């Protein structure tokens, strides 16, 4: 009997322990599998972290900055160059409260406009905007020639009558300036930005009038807001 068993390879009393060993190995494998699954779940959860609050802050910031009622715009999606240059971080947080507790950076056309903290690894949101700036253009008009059409539209005209003798100035047929005996000094006139200005003077005018106009120049730029909450 004992010879038979040793031939099979199981000494007496060792059989239960052998199967326990196999069980222990199985349980260790199972534990490893569970640990691995939990690690995978952990990695999946970590990689699903897209920080929606951060992204919302960035999107809202660009939305509020280009809104028609924003202090930085002239109209919807057209930023005012001067207002953007004067922008401070506190003014921006006042306009966009979700930026209050975050590090952020605002770039316009690749140039940093406002920065607070160091938003490394934050969420960036970009949109294309127009940036408007007024350039002053001054030209001399020969009063005897009678009429001139300005090449670019403007909201304001400034006339200098120092070297001229003019009684009446019309813009697009409407009288905007008149003085019996001749206009003197400088005068500013608001005109429509939505039509091209044609300036005419009265027939008896002589000399040279200097006219300054302030045409708006717009350039496209990318507005980029990076937020790291």
């Amino acid at each position: 009997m004992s010879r038979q068993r040793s031939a099979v390879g199981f000494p007496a009393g060792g059989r239960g322990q052998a199967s326990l060993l196999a069980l222990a190995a199985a349980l260790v494998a199972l534990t490893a599998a569970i640990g691995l699954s939990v690690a995978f779940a952990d990695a999946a959860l970590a990689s699903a972290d897209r920080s929606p609050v951060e992204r919302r802050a960035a999107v809202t910031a660009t939305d509020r900055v280009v809104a028609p009622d924003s202090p930085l715009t002239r109209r919807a999606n057209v930023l005012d160059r001067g207002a953007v240059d004067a922008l401070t971080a506190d003014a921006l947080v006042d306009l966009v409260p979700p930026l209050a507790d975050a590090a952020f950076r605002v770039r316009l056309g690749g140039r940093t406009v406002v920065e607070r903290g160091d938003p490394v690894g934050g969420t960036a949101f970009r949109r294309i905007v127009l940036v408007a700036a007024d350039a002053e253009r001054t030209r001399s008009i020969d009063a005897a020639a009678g009429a001139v059409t300005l090449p670019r539209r403007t909201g304001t005209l400034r006339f200098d009558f120092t070297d001229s003798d003019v009684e009446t100035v019309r813009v697009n047929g409407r009288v905007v300036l008149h003085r019996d005996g001749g206009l003197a000094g400088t005068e500013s006139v608001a005109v429509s930005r939505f039509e091209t200005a044609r300036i005419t003077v009265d027939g008896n005018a002589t000399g040279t009038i200097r006219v300054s106009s302030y045409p708006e120049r717009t350039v496209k730029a990318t507005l980029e807001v990076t937020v790291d909450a």
Partner: protein
Amino acid sequence: MRDRRAVTPAVAKTLELGVVLLFIGAVSASLVGGVAPEYRAAAGDEAAGRVVAAAATHVEAAVPVPVDASAVSVERRVDLPPTIAGAAYRVVADGGRLTLSHPNPGVAASTPLALPDRVVVDGTWESGAETVVTVESSANRLRVRLVSR
């Protein structure tokens, strides 16, 4: 010798049974007692952040763009998930912020609203109800309310 041989398998099986039961008990306890609730809260926290961000975007979008418009009446439905981490929750607008309050303290989210100064926001959304945002003009301001029906 023969008597003992008969006992051996019974003892072995009992031992195995005990070890396996212990193992299952330990694993279940650690999963149910520690890992699972922790992940549930973590996933719920992520979901809460998303819900609040989406809700805030809906509220801001409901306010009409010319903010100085005199007569405004807007009503929009906003879809919210009925539960987060298996429990109902509330979204409260207070002091210019949207805050999600949830029975599980591990699940929380809050975000400030970006709205012009003359807009005031109040009200509460209960998840599971029909959630609506209304905008009314009153006395030179816009009143935004979160309404549950």
